[in-house]
């Protein structure tokens, strides 16, 4: 099962390696990973997406808590409702006959063109991972030159 795990850590060198080591040491793949400082620059927030057996993920979650540099671990699997957003840059081939179609798709997904040239558009999209995948599928027939995704960031909804 896929899990989105949010980890609040101290912003110190080596912390990322400690966190990543817990996954790699158990043969687990981190699908996406996002790290940035919080309002207080002494801490960073990580969002990790991984998948695996629930029992092993419970163990990983406990092991994360055991790390000295980890302040808080939230596993968003289960009944916690949360916001889940990702940003992606898509460089798409946009020759004369496709330029209008590319812009239409951009419009439908409330994305925006952030760079353009005679033969390409670079489109920025934010949204949940399902939306991102939808845009990519729509643009694929036009010819995608490259895609860079941030991986999702997650935040619990206020009750």
């Amino acid at each position, binding site marked *: 099962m896929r899990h989105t795990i949010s980890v609040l*850590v*101290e912003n110190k*060198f*080596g912390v990322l*390696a*400690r966190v990543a*080591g817990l996954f790699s*040491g158990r043969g687990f793949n981190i699908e996406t990973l996002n790290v940035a400082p919080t309002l207080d620059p002494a801490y960073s927030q990580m969002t990790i997406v991984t998948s695996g057996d629930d*029992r092993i993920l*419970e*163990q990983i979650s*406990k*092991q994360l*808590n*055991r*790390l*000295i*540099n*980890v*302040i808080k671990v939230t596993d968003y699997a289960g009944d916690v409702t949360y916001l889940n957003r990702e940003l992606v840059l898509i460089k798409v081939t946009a020759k004369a006959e496709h330029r209008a179609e590319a812009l239409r798709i951009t419009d439908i997904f409330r994305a925006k063109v952030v760079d353009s040239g005679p033969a390409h558009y670079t489109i920025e999209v934010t949204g949940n991972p399902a939306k991102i995948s939808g845009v990519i599928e729509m643009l694929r027939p036009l010819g995608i030159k490259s895609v860079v995704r941030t991986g999702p960031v997650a935040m619990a909804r206020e009750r």
Partner: protein
Amino acid sequence: MKLSGAEIFLECLRREKVDTIFGYPGGVLLNIYDVLHQQRDIRHILTKHEQGAVHAADGYARASGKPGVVLVTSGPGATNTVTGIATAFMDSIPMVVFTGQVPMSMIGNDAFQEADIVGITRPCTKHNYLVSDVSKLASTIKEAFHIATHGRPGPVLIDLPKDVTVNQTEFKYPARVDLKGFKPNYEGNVQQIKRALQAIKKAERPVLFTGGGVILSNAAAELRKLARKTQIPVTSSLMGLGAYPGEDPLFLGMLGMHGTYAANMSIQNTDLIIAVGARFDDRVTGKIESFAPKAGIVHFDIDPTSIKKNIRVDIPVVGDCRNVLKEMNRLLAAERGVPWKKKHAGWLAQIEEWRKAHPMTYRERKGKIPPQYVVEQIHKLTKGEAIITTEVGQNQMWAAQFFKFKHPRQFLSSGGLGTMGYGFPAAIGAQFACPDKVVFDIAGDGSIQMNIQELATAVQHRLPVNVAILDNRFLGMVRQWQQLFYDCRYSSTCLHSGPDFVRLAEAYGAVGLRITEKADVPDAIREAIATKNTVLLDFIVDREANVMPMVPAGASIDEMMLDDGKGKKSLPKQQADKITG
């Protein structure tokens, strides 16, 4: 006044009340060793190999309950500590390891004797640090000792670049440590403890299962009180031996792969396991699906990751074992009117039957010394009071089975990692911690050779440490598996060309004795105990003696090979006599 990093290092150790450190100098540590040379508060024990230093500090920690401290140089000095650190990590032993490092400006340049020891030891330390600035040195050392000794203990490593030991700063030792990400839960949840008590009251066939946590948290007295009051029998993992007295009628012996018949049968038939400071290691559970099939499980442990890791748990209590047991005993005191003795009489009678059906025994072959007999004699002649360290393999299991430990911190063995070469340096560390105790390393002829260079350390300090080699000219435990499961194909397990241990001991300035007759065993042990010098006893034992009972890997713990003539499975024919060498 400003102090150099090296002076701060020393001052911090003083504040932590460290009296002994084990180490090995090198280029980047010259400033620290220079400071150490000019003081008398802290003695530095120079081992002959860095691995020996870490195991010695580990033995010192296990025997004394205080954190072990290690000081080694950069590069190979640091990498040589890894096995010792991993050993301490697996067994949750409090330890602070200081490694020298090349100057900050040279880190990452493949400098001479540079190794990324923080990266290398990340998965086998509780926490580790690279001190990048002398201003952070004192607070880092304070944190390291705090982390090593609080919660579930473990080794912490501090990497000290040379310039940090040279640079000066104002010395200020923090009075306390406040780490946001490290707040161990010491007090168990009272509601959970009450639920556990209800479960105990309801249980008809309860068993206490104790692990190393009971020893680490100094909970033996509370455990004894609980078991005696409630008349619940006690079994133990290897790491928990000594928490409950080995000769007490309620003690079932060790559980698991080489556990007693009574212990394994009682776990398979119990309706309630009260696990205290144990982590249900695979050597204890055997086949997990059929472990304790009828039991509810209460689990006390300070580390939430130990709970539900290998085995389902019905009533978890996260907290320090001693506090939780104390609270349990307090609640029990108010529970009048439970006729504990009567309640468990039938269960204890059943256990007695198992005990009588298959007691711990061993084979005797004419003209041979049974290795188990040597352990029994060490037990008898030291009145069960000796500190016993072990290497790993048959020697370790025989020590666990045949020495009846009276006290916690009396049995020092590498349980989790299973490190051959642990026992002898650990014995040295234990002897430094407890100079008045008799210390025996129960060793094999294979594993003693993994750190035998420490004979020089023991002799230099006139330590009366005793080494009892159960010499079978085999890597015995691996050979045993080859005999049982690989049709006696003894691949790379025959030690034909082992050294003459007696002459080797003498070459180091120790006393060496070889014992080839069973009748001479007691006198040799007496002589070793009486000798003030380091003594190495080379017992030429029955070559193909096996550790029994045995649960084969992957089997349930009640599927035991017994080898007492009453078991279900017979053993393959022995063939050691055919092997020359």
